């Protein structure tokens, strides 16, 4: 018997006890207790009838650099990160979706360069910081995208590069993330990815 079935049985028993009390007991306080049993049992049954989703902490997945041979391997890791630790799919979709609340990422790897994607993920306020839509003095309008390399998500540089590789792959673009760019644990990290040359493009997007 599944856990849900066991819990449903418990809830049903609570309802049953409540019904029995109402049928056979005359004392007012106990009858009211029986009534409360029925209400609480029905509440639990209702809660057990909806999809049972638990929230598990993200698994601490370590990227084994030695197992990565090609950019496609990086993209495969990026796909895992995109749907798990990165929580990207919580807000974004790949392709049109009614439930997506944030920009559709289909084709984003073709529209934006690797450097710009990296900066968008680690410093989302870099360019989109004021709301020009209402005329007059622009209002502060911070992007709701969090800096992905900081808590609560806290992706490592390797994980961010892997996500970029996945987005490029999904867009049908050649993956521009090279295996050599990945940091090997214990070694001095390489220079961070720069967003040089992306500024003019970003401003054009905003306006």
């Amino acid at each position, binding site marked *: 018997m599944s856990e849900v079935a066991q819990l449903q049985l418990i809830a049903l028993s609570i309802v049953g006890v409540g019904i029995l009390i109402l049928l056979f007991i005359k004392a007012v306080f106990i009858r009211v207790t029986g009534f409360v049993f029925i209400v609480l049992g029905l509440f639990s049954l209702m809660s057990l009838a909806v999809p049972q989703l*638990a929230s598990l902490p993200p698994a601490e997945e370590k990227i084994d650099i030695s197992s990565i041979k090609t950019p496609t391997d990086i993209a495969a890791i990026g796909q895992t990160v995109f749907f798990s630790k990165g929580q990207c799919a919580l807000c974004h979709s790949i392709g049109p979706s009614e*439930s997506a609340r944030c920009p559709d990422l289909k084709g984003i790897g073709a529209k934006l360069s690797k450097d710009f994607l990296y900066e968008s993920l680690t410093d989302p306020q870099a360019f989109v910081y004021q709301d020009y839509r209402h005329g007059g003095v622009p209002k502060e309008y911070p992007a709701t995208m969090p800096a992905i390399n900081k808590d609560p998500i806290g992706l490592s540089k390797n994980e961010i590069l892997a996500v970029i590789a996945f987005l490029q792959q999904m867009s049908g673009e050649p993956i521009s993330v090279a295996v050599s760019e990945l940091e090997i644990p214990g070694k001095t990290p390489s220079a961070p990815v720069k967003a040089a040359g992306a500024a003019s493009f970003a401003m054009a997007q905003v306006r």
Partner: protein
Amino acid sequence: MSAIQEVETVQRALRAMRGQERWLLGLLFTAGWFLLPSMGFAAEGTTAGPTEYRDIPYIGSRNLVWIVAQLHLLLAGFVLGVPIFAWLCEVIAWRGGEKRYDKLAKEFTKLLTSAYATTALFGGILLFLLVAFYPKLMNYLTDVFFPSFLLYCLLFLLETATLYLYWYGWDAMQYGNKKTLHVFLGFLLNFFALFIMIVPNAWATFQSSPVVLSEGTAFERAWAATWNPTWWPINIHRLIANVVLGGYICGAYAGVRYLSVKSTEDREHYDWMGYVGNFIGVFGLLALPFAGYWLMREIYQYNQQMGITLMGGFLSWLFIIQAMLIGVLFLGSNYYFWLGITYRIPGSEAKYRRAMLMMLISLLLCLAVWMTPHSLVASIEEAQKMGGAHHPLLGVLGVMSAKMTVSNLMILITFMSFVMYWRAGKQDTAGWAKLGKAVMGAVLVLASLAVIVLGIWGYFVPAIVRINYFSTSQVAIVGFVILTITPLTALLLKSAKTTTEMVWGSMPPRAGYALVLNAVMVILLMTLMGYARSSSRVHWHVYGVMRDTSPYAYSPALGSASLIMAFCTFFFCILVAFIFWVATMGDKYKAAAGAGKGELPHGIPAMAGGAPEERQ
């Protein structure tokens, strides 16, 4: 003692025990049984470095803390809600001269001393459990909030002193300036109670939306952490919710007493008490969805992911259950009003039957829309036929625009139920009555249409426009209706002729059960939303700052969580029933023994919660 000597000693002891094996085995088994928990406690303590977590076998540390925290919060809501309720009743009696309100206020204040002690007891247990099970987290929170801990202690002292003065001085401060002083004490009691609520709210909201200063004095750091984005939305939401809880628990108590009392006088008294409790509950309930909406808006603004986790992520189905509970609460409150019209005001049933039926149908339709999920639970074949998880027709109703619209309509309907009850059994005599009623009717119809139009229009505008302008306009429209129709009705009824006198004590037994149902719904809602707020932090003790690395760093699914919620609700009901029983024990004794016989001898202080001598 050498090792050989030790072995010899054990052997001698075993020889001496020969023939007692069964008894010894039983003793060992019992000792082992009792030692099991300590083995669990010690598990985390043996690792190197400071202990981060401790656990308890069987129930688990997280579940134990969950239950105790929830019970403490419910009791705190009760202890903070009842003084508001009691003080409002006292003010009505003081200004209006109706003594029965004063008696009601006193009856509920009597509960406070024992309820206050029980709440503090659970608060103390919670604190010990938190320090024992989560030492690292508590150390961190203490470091951030140390100044507010001191403030909290001071507030408790002030609240306790004020409560004792307010309760024990009730009879001594009945008349003249002393009554004014007593009312002021009631105000002070609520004033301190408000701060007692908002100080720990800062600790809880900090965990969800932390503001951390790395530099500054202890006071500056505590102040920044206190003034976090969700602090005031929670403060307002809980303040209103406490009034609702206080009102509905008063109603439930009256309902249970109404079902059990025999004398006509008692039936009338508890019927009236049930009406007052339900009225105050509904009064707060009308404003509660607005406060909840503001809270969710602030959560979204603070962190989009947290908002989505709540409304669109793994907690999204919880809001369907919430809709069901709120819907039942609205139905229960309206049903009680309708029963009042039918049974307390003879002759009104025929006049209002059609309107009541229409209201019932409208409420059920609104509830159906509110409970429509955004994505349906469907098999692969069904999903393929629908072209996704969204039903082609019902999918339209499962979005916020529709839900906001129906929740506003339900508030309007409930308000109109109250107005209907208010007007029943009275005949207008004012010359402008026809015009007044026409204006009220027009306001109601136009407002309802405006709410619906804005709801439909909301589908065709960007979400930000809907949230910032349309939803707030809907709320403003409903507020306008309440603020227009209430004074107009009051003016109209000032000169109205009473055609049918209110008959108290004539309600059927199901009215008592309706009051109990309403109270259970409110308590369940509080436990449900407590789980939601806590789960929205996912695997963080302090969101984005301190990660939960314990084995309990997951949020259980709604089904298993619901059983804990049900247990908390039931246990809280039993606790409240016990408090009521203890507090009214003296009255029953007095009533049974006759006046004077059951009173304490002069000079002997009454126990906390005991009733002082009545002089009314």
